[in-house]
């Protein structure tokens, strides 16, 4: 089967700087994929190459079986570029209608499609306005709306919620969750909780190189790790009690948070073990503030790019 996105030995250089350095990657269809990495890791460059905004220095990149940027992909990729303004002096609705027409919609259908995407983001009233009169959050909404025009097969979102208020962030995440069944998403974000919340897979890149590509559950090691946040610092006697349990391989308190505990285990029945641990904690008179399966996501990603 042809991979949905496939890059082989992909290099993109800007003078002496290599934004992408021999990146080889294969992504499947119908997934929501989080693209993470520190500033300058090459995330935006990778998204720009996928859209054909820039050309690779060497190597090749194929999307849906076609070379990135090729004619066959026009209208099949929707993108929310970071901080790119709409054209000034032209109402939002007129611009969305143009995009719909370029994607093959005829006159009335193009207007209907523009209304649909504005409705989807609950911002129909913004259609009549000029982009320069919109607030940052409103601009983000309409640019997200343009990414969804024509229901593209692949949607690329570069920092989709940065600069939005918490209500708008929840709204955008809800929309992505709603749409991800019918589309493939690649979301580049520094907000790791957002990636964990929305995506199924994660691609970690650093200095233009692939560090890790896996399912988020695998990264979190949900079936072999527990993270427990207690109401007080962990006592050594509690650690010894845990270590005596046969399924537990290692127990380690967090270096920074003294009341957080990571438990590494191996068990055929992790659900049962979970209850046993909670029971043990209750008997020890310790209050559990948070209890989650898997390692702390942020710590894991930081560890990968460090």
């Amino acid at each position, binding site marked *: 089967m042809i991979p949905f996105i496939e890059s082989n030995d992909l290099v993109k250089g800007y003078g002496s700087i290599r934004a992408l350095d021999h990146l080889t990657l294969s992504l499947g269809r119908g997934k929501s994929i989080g693209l993470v990495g520190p500033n300058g890791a090459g995330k935006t460059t990778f998204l720009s190459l996928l859209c054909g*905004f820039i050309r690779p220095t060497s190597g090749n990149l194929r999307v849906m079986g076609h070379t990135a940027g090729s004619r066959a992909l*026009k*209208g099949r*990729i*929707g993108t929310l*570029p970071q901080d790119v303004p709409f*054209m000034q002096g032209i109402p939002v609705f007129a611009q969305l209608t143009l995009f719909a027409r*370029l*994607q093959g919609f005829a006159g009335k259908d193009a207007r209907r499609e523009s209304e649909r995407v504005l409705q989807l983001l609950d911002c129909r009233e913004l259609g009549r306005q000029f982009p320069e009169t919109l607030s940052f959050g409103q601009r983000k909404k309409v640019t997200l709306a343009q990414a969804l025009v024509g229901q593209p097969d692949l949607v690329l979102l570069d920092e989709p919620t940065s600069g939005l208020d918490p209500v708008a962030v929840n709204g955008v995440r809800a929309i992505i969750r709603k749409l991800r069944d019918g589309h493939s998403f690649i979301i580049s974000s520094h907000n790791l909780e957002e990636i964990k919340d929305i995506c199924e897979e994660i691609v970690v890149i650093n200095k233009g190189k692939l560090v890790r590509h896996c399912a988020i559950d695998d990264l979190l090691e949900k079936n072999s790790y527990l993270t427990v946040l207690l109401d007080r610092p962990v006592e050594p006697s509690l650690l010894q009690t845990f270590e005596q349990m046969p399924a537990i391989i290692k127990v380690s308190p967090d270096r920074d948070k003294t009341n957080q505990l990571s438990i590494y285990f191996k068990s055929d029945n992790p659900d049962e073990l979970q209850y046993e641990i909670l029971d043990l904690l209750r008997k020890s008179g310790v209050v559990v503030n948070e209890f989650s399966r898997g390692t702390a996501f942020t710590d894991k990603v930081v560890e990968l790019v460090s």
Partner: protein
Amino acid sequence: MNWRRTGILAAYDLRYSVLRLKGLVFLIPFTFFWYWLIKSLLDNSARHLVSTEGLAVTAMLFNPEIAQTLLILHPPSLSVFYIVILSTAPFFVMLGANNQLAGDAGRQTFRYYLTRCTRSELFFGRFISSYLLVAVAIIIVAVITTFISLYHDDHGNAETIAYAMQVTFLTLAYILPFIAYMAMVSSFMGSALSTLLVAVALYFVLLILTTYINHYLPVNMSLLPSGIKHHLFNIHPQDLYYALGGSTCYTLIYGMIGWWLFQRRNI
């Protein structure tokens, strides 16, 4: 290339250019300039050029034969329009076609377009819209001048209309390479203003180079389309073919360079 998408891009750009800075920067000076000239033509000022003194001045600018052809054998009002429009074409085209690609490429607005259409469609869509903006303005002035000529000049109606069509066609052919020249500069610049400044600077550099080459090489060589202008004033068919061929060559050369650069630029 998808011509439907190219047409949509051209029509959309043309429609919104008229009401935005992009078009107004050309339309306002063009309107003022031609308002002043048309007002003067309405007062039948072209008849002064048909006098002995007028012919002598025109002969100094071109040659006696061209002066006689333009002002006596043809309706003088239309000839004045023709001389002035050809002489001012580079300036007005630079104003009207400087923002074909540079502004939207520099602001990265093209990122919204490039997932929906190809770079070639964008390039030709903008080229066509810029050409139409300038061409429609010229056609409007040509129509007004034709009515003035029909009223004032002592030539038959059929002859005046045929001459009006001829000069309009030649003018529209003459501006084509200048639009391509602006497309070429616009394809690698990051803003409309920088395109305008670089286009003017490059124009003068090419002008000086042409003068330098012609001084040392005994051939008539030009790096700019204004080199074909004197052929357009010669209404002889042979000169006209030469001028039209030259115009096509310049358009192809500048256009191809611009297209090639735009295909390769990062957006």
